């Protein structure tokens, strides 16, 4: 597949956004959006208000130590299950705070996917594109949301808060660099967001305008994906310099900083809340170290011990503020972990059954979909494929996963055409 980002130029986006803006203004003038706008367009406008919060528990969260516990079985591990806020539903005792917000979530205990090349990378790509990686590259879901939902020119559409030492990924594929994740490695602001002291504001703006003129002249003669990328990078950098406070989590109240915790994932969740409040369309938080081939129980105890409270706190805050009504929350991992406990007290990769969690807008919460057998070795009810979940993530925010991207003149469906959304999860 040819990567042609010129069909996704800034000009196209601006004109599309202007059109929608005009329509909104016009509709507001007559006072009733629904009466005067075509239903399909109204639905798209509705979708524009949506935001998405993605948690990636990187390495492969164990379903046994989280959302599908099997205590006192040969596979179950040493931890107990505890009741949740949903009567009859139990989680592992490692996530007591998440258990208290279970009614704001829907748990899918019957995820599966075929094994794909690339181990973690391949499986991760499958989860966030809904397509086997060998068929790609397809854009990850964050960039897709950035393209289809983001309507604020002054904000990055897609921000990824990562553990330290994570660099940018080429996750936008044919959507172009404008929609690639802006990576906040270690939750830190992008590098060099402070204007060099040698430039005052006026001089810096003059410099920026001069570069724009040069870019425009160049692009009128030779328009390539590279020039788009450079232009996009400069624009994004300018945005970031203007809004560097956006990334400063210390501006949140001390009380909130205490509530979320001083460890990295606590700060990252609070930063995610801040970014969503400021209007960023898609925020992804990655939490590491679930690849527990060795000492699975120790590592899950440690990692979920960090993750549980800030995640639940953020869910509660989003709910309290009303943001859950327009924010889709996804908690995903690339695969599950083996029922069999390995010799090093570990669990290996397992793509036959694992759990994901969704909540917020568009989702029927407070339930469990699918089931595994008594010791978690196989799915016994309602298998759900990763491709189906991709469709579901789209539908939940009012997007049509059967619609298409235009790539080099070809129509490419948003979601894998052979799959469809999980209706049981949708409102």
């Amino acid at each position, binding site marked *: 597949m040819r990567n042609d980002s010129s069909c996704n130029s800034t000009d196209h986006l601006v004109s599309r956004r202007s059109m929608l803006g005009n329509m909104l203004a016009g509709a507001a003038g007559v006072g009733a959006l629904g009466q005067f706008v075509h239903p399909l367009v109204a639905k798209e406008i509705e979708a524009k208000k949506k935001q998405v919060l993605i948690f990636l528990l990187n390495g492969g969260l164990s379903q046994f130590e989280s959302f599908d516990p099997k205590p*006192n079985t040969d596979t179950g591990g040493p931890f*107990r299950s505890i009741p949740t806020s949903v009567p009859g539903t139990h989680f592992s*005792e490692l996530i007591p705070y998440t258990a208290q917000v279970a009614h704001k979530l829907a748990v899918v205990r019957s995820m599966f996917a075929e094994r794909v090349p690339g181990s973690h990378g391949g499986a991760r790509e499958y989860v966030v594109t809904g397509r086997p990686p060998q068929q790609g590259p397809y854009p990850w879901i964050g960039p897709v949301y950035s393209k289809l939902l983001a309507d604020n020119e002054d904000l990055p559409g897609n921000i990824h808060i990562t*553990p330290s030492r994570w660099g940018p990924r080429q996750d936008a594929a044919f959507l172009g660099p404008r929609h690639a994740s802006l990576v906040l490695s270690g939750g830190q602001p992008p590098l060099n967001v402070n204007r060099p002291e040698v430039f005052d504001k006026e001089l810096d703006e003059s410099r920026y305008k001069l570069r724009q003129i040069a870019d425009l002249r160049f692009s009128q003669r030779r328009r390539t994906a590279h020039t788009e990328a450079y232009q996009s990078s400069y624009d994004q950098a300018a945005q970031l310099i203007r809004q560097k406070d956006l990334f400063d989590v210390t501006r949140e109240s001390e009380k909130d900083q205490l509530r979320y915790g001083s460890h990295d994932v606590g700060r990252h969740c609070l930063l995610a809340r801040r970014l969503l409040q400021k209007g960023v369309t898609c925020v992804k938080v990655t939490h590491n170290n679930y*690849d527990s081939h060795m000492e699975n129980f120790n590592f899950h105890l*440690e990692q979920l011990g960090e993750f549980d409270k800030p995640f639940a706190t953020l869910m509660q805050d989003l709910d309290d503020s009303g943001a859950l009504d327009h924010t889709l929350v996804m908690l995903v991992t690339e695969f599950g972990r083996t029922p069999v*406990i390995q010799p*090093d007290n570990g669990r290996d990769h397992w793509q036959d059954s694992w759990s994901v969690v969704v909540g917020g807008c568009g989702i029927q919460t407070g339930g469990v979909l699918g089931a595994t057998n008594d010791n978690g070795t196989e799915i016994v009810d309602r298998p759900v494929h990763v491709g189906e979940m991709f469709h579901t993530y789209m539908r939940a925010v009012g997007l049509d996963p059967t619609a298409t991207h235009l790539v080099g003149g070809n129509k490419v469906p948003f979601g894998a055409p052979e799959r469809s959304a999980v209706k049981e999860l949708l409102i």
Partner: protein
Amino acid sequence: MTESTFVPQPDGADPIATRLVAELKHDRGILACRYDTVNHFLFAGARDYFVHRWDLAREPVVEPPADPKKKPKVPPVPVAPMDSRIELAEHQSWVGGLSLFGDGERMATGDFVGRLVVWSDRAGVPKPLFSFEAHKGSIRKVAVSPDGNLVATVGNDGAVRVWHTDSASKLHVELLGHDCHVYHVAFHPDGKSLISADLKGRVKHWDVETGKLVREIDASLLYAYSEKYEVDVGGIRGMTFNADGSQVCFAGATGDKGIAHSGNARVLLFDWESGRLLKELRPEKEEVCTAWGVQFHPDGFIIGSGGSRTGGFLWFWTPDNEVAFHMVRFQQRAPGFDVDLAPDNRTLAVANHDGVIRLYEMSGEKKADLAEAGT
């Protein structure tokens, strides 16, 4: 192997001759095992909610081959009869802590959700004398004092607690100071000192009577902070004093291989009085695995058990040589999580990941009766 510096005594154990003599089978991984030095039993904690007791007086049997027409390549290993094992119910999670009182009556066990159980009548029909939640989160190990008046527990809540054994949940002293999971605990043979050891390889020496911290011993060779994964790895997995308390060993692994692989197996031998590291004991060939269990043998050598998914091992060292003079590689790829020495000083019990306790004899002679191991 390096040339052995160990010479067996005329009637003593001969590690070079170590051979598998019996299997005590279960269907869950075994985490801890202890010989009953008074009675003919072997107790174990496993990846289930029971304490298991095998009657070693029962003659092991050779199971008939699955296919009678095929002659096995190696002679089958005798197996303890199924009905020689009983299960003792009280725990609510895996049982990793197990320590027997010297009175032949009582036993203390701890589980992964913090429950401490002290049992009575261990040679008859064992019943919980008392049972309570001693820690928030897992109990990693328990230890009974030499006089049987105290039992110490350590766990994931970072606390070391010493309990009176004459009544339920009567705390003698709480010892705080570890800032991470505490993996192991042991009383010094004099009963006056207690040591606790943690994930970061720090050993704290406590005065049992006053609860004061006496000193710290640095065994952090068995710990690493993984820069790549930003996590702590390793810890002290096995720990034991020699009989007179002049030396202490810590078992674990050195180095940082991330979160998917262990470091290299090591046992650290320390002088108790000075707290000085005497020897860093290692296999002849580096093994990416953990040493989980360690025991001193009265004949002057040290036994370690361990392994990983690549295999399970017994190692034998003399205190004057860093390199093991002998190693037994298990047939099965299952680490030995614990090792205990039988009262006869010739038989070893190894708690294996694959759900089997294997008994090894450090002797070329074939014993007629397993029960001798318990006498």
